[in-house]
């Protein structure tokens, strides 16, 4: 008895890494080092907010990146409704998951910033209120994606919700302006604070660091989602194969 060794068509590693992710990962290391160096060490404390201004170098880039991920979810949802693309369905879900995590951290770091600055962790300010709502809405989106139903039907329904949910992104982004135009009172604005060169650099590095991190994470997380999808598919195929074999065996004069 000889076992025939089939050479693999191409070598696919038993993890989600690749040259692309290694390159992105290198960029993450470099940008994060620079960002943390500037944000936490080299840049000066703020005149008004003191050291807590440093939270913004983390908070603002994550907030912007969460809007980016929800935009990917929007695009993915539109593509799913147009042509039932599996890639975009998975991508929309993956992006929303990362976006919800980012948004949760945005709210948490905002609360930590609010305590020393406003004297309270939570303020019923339009931006905070709409951000909390957006978090809950996208949490609902993630729940829809996990419903136990036909994958094609679920993908379409999630896509509809992914499109409807997006209204929260501009609503949150412009909430301060919308509410300010309604109420005449002014709220504390971030742009009031004077920013010097090192602070601006810290912001820019924070954006760069979070953007490269998001790209790296999206690739890995998408590959995991693809693996999960492949598992479901192969599980289904095996089920059908077993049924066929069973049917053939039960047939009179069938294969024994």
């Amino acid at each position: 008895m000889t076992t025939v060794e089939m050479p693999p068509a191409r070598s696919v590693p038993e993890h989600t890494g690749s040259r692309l992710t290694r390159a992105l990962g290198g960029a993450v290391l470099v940008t994060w080092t620079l960002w943390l160096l500037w944000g936490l060490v080299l840049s000066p404390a703020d005149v008004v907010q003191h050291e807590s201004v440093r939270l913004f170098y983390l908070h603002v880039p994550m907030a912007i990146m969460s809007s980016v991920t929800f935009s990917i979810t929007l695009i993915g949802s539109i593509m799913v409704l147009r042509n039932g693309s599996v890639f975009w369905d998975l991508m929309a879900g993956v992006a929303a998951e990362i976006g919800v995590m980012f948004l949760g951290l945005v709210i948490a770091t905002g609360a930590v910033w609010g305590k020393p600055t406003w004297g309270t962790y939570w303020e019923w300010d339009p931006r905070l209120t709409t951000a909390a709502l957006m978090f809950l809405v996208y949490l609902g989106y993630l729940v829809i994606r996990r419903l136990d139903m036909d994958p094609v039907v679920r993908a379409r329904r999630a896509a509809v919700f992914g499109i409807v949910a997006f209204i929260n992104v501009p609503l949150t982004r412009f909430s301060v302006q919308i509410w300010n135009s309604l109420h005449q009172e002014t709220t504390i604005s971030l742009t009031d604070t004077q920013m010097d060169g090192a602070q601006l650099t810290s912001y820019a590095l924070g954006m760069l660091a979070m953007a490269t991190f998001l790209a790296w994470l999206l690739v890995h997380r998408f590959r995991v989602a693809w693996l999960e999808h492949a598992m479901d598919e192969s599980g289904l195929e095996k089920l059908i194969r077993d049924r066929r074999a069973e049917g053939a065996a039960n047939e009179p004069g069938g294969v024994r």
Partner: protein
Amino acid sequence: MFWGYVIAGYGIAAVVLGTYVVSTLRRGRTLSRQLDPEQRRFLDD
């Protein structure tokens, strides 16, 4: 007293992001092992 808040903020983010990254990478390894090579990737590298 302000440094405490800064450390808390960055600490929360580090823990959450770190946990998510580790669990994503580990899940990727576990699932990859259970699938044939040609099923593992959406695209060639």
